[in-house]
């Protein structure tokens, strides 16, 4: 039993440690190829992303943001922040974006509400991810695969 616990600490547990670095371009590509999205997603500039997520230019060192046609709330927004403090602030803004989108779409496209219910909004160190998809399990599987 003790052996198993110690073995687990050095094998199984280490498999669940989240990476400290992500390749945002590669991750966004994998997400798009995961069949989790039903809408056409197209990249927007950092300046446009800042208008959604309310960050200062210096607080985000890298980002990949893809928005839908407007027909849906689907979106991929992956950020690397300059500090954990900036990341925490951005995470809060991403949480707010879920609610903002809910307000905008609830009468316009009620079918989008389940997607927002399943929105993936996470922070891991300097990284903040906001992912709204048609199939959150597929998107989550891509994120989980990064942790191996």
């Amino acid at each position, binding site marked *: 039993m003790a052996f198993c616990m110690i073995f687990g600490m050095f094998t199984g547990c280490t498999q669940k440690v989240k990476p400290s670095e992500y390749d945002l371009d590669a991750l966004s590509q994998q997400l798009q190829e995961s069949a989790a999205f039903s809408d*056409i997603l197209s990249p*927007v500039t950092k300046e446009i992303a800042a208008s959604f997520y309310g960050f200062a230019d210096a607080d985000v060192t890298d980002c990949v943001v893809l*928005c839908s046609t*407007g*027909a*849906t709330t689907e979106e991929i927004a992956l950020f690397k922040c300059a500090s954990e403090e900036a990341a925490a602030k951005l995470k809060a803004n991403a949480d707010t974006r879920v609610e903002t989108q809910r307000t905008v779409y609830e009468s*316009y496209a009620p079918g989008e509400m389940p997607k927002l219910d399943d929105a993936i909004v996470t922070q891991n160190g300097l990284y903040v991810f906001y992912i709204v998809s048609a199939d959150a399990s597929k998107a989550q599987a891509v994120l989980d695969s990064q942790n191996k």
Partner: protein
Amino acid sequence: MTHSNKKNKGLRAVFFVLLVLLVVLIVYFSKKEGSILARPSETPSPAATDETVAPPSVAETPAGESETPTATPSPSPSEAVTSGPDLTARDPMNDDYFSDAAFMGNSLMDGFRLFSGLTTCDYYAATSMTVVGATTKACITLDNGTPGTLVQGLSQEAYGKIYILLGINEIGYDVDTFIDYYSQMLDEIIAAQPDCDIYVMGLTPVSEAKSSSSDTFNMKRINDYNTALHQLAADKGCYYMDLVSALAGPDGYLPASETTDGVHFSAKVYQTWLDYVRTHYA
């Protein structure tokens, strides 16, 4: 008798020739007159242009430059508007040209903000926005920190150009009601920005699948709206932008490959839209 017959025969021959000549002349001139009458509706003559209410800044197409991009055949062609300023394709303007411009509209205009790459202008756009909502729905934060409508946002500073795209969200209205509301909104904007060039953008095309499956979101209604918008723009001295011609494929519909719901479209289409805006100006 014989001499008289010969004389009569000669007279008849001359009369016949004259008659034939007369008929030929009548047919010739009637055709010529018809073609002259038809020409203005095909291509406005300079004289016809002078009679419009176009501001003095309306420019003609430079020599050697193509006219407006080839109009795509629409399922229900709009009627020609015979007065008011119109736009033709010209040399593209760069981003600086839009530094005194504001773009106002619905989710499609918001898409233009996201994907066109044009950042030198101001945007006042919101998902599900309508012509009524533009003057009544406080959905933006004004410069003074208070909530305001899109039209109040437009009124915060003096703009040289204002581009408006509204209508697809109220496509269920009857055309006259829509135009009444649009007219009231335009009056408000014109009063606030009397020296501004205002561009009324026609409704954008929908996909064939959408058009054929919807009683409201179809090209027949869109063309009806656009015909009325074109006339309204002319009546108000505004410029009309034909986005169906600009964005539709050869079949007159939004290409299926560029949309998932038949109404909203991909970034690629926004680039086409921006190209149209860059090349069509007063």
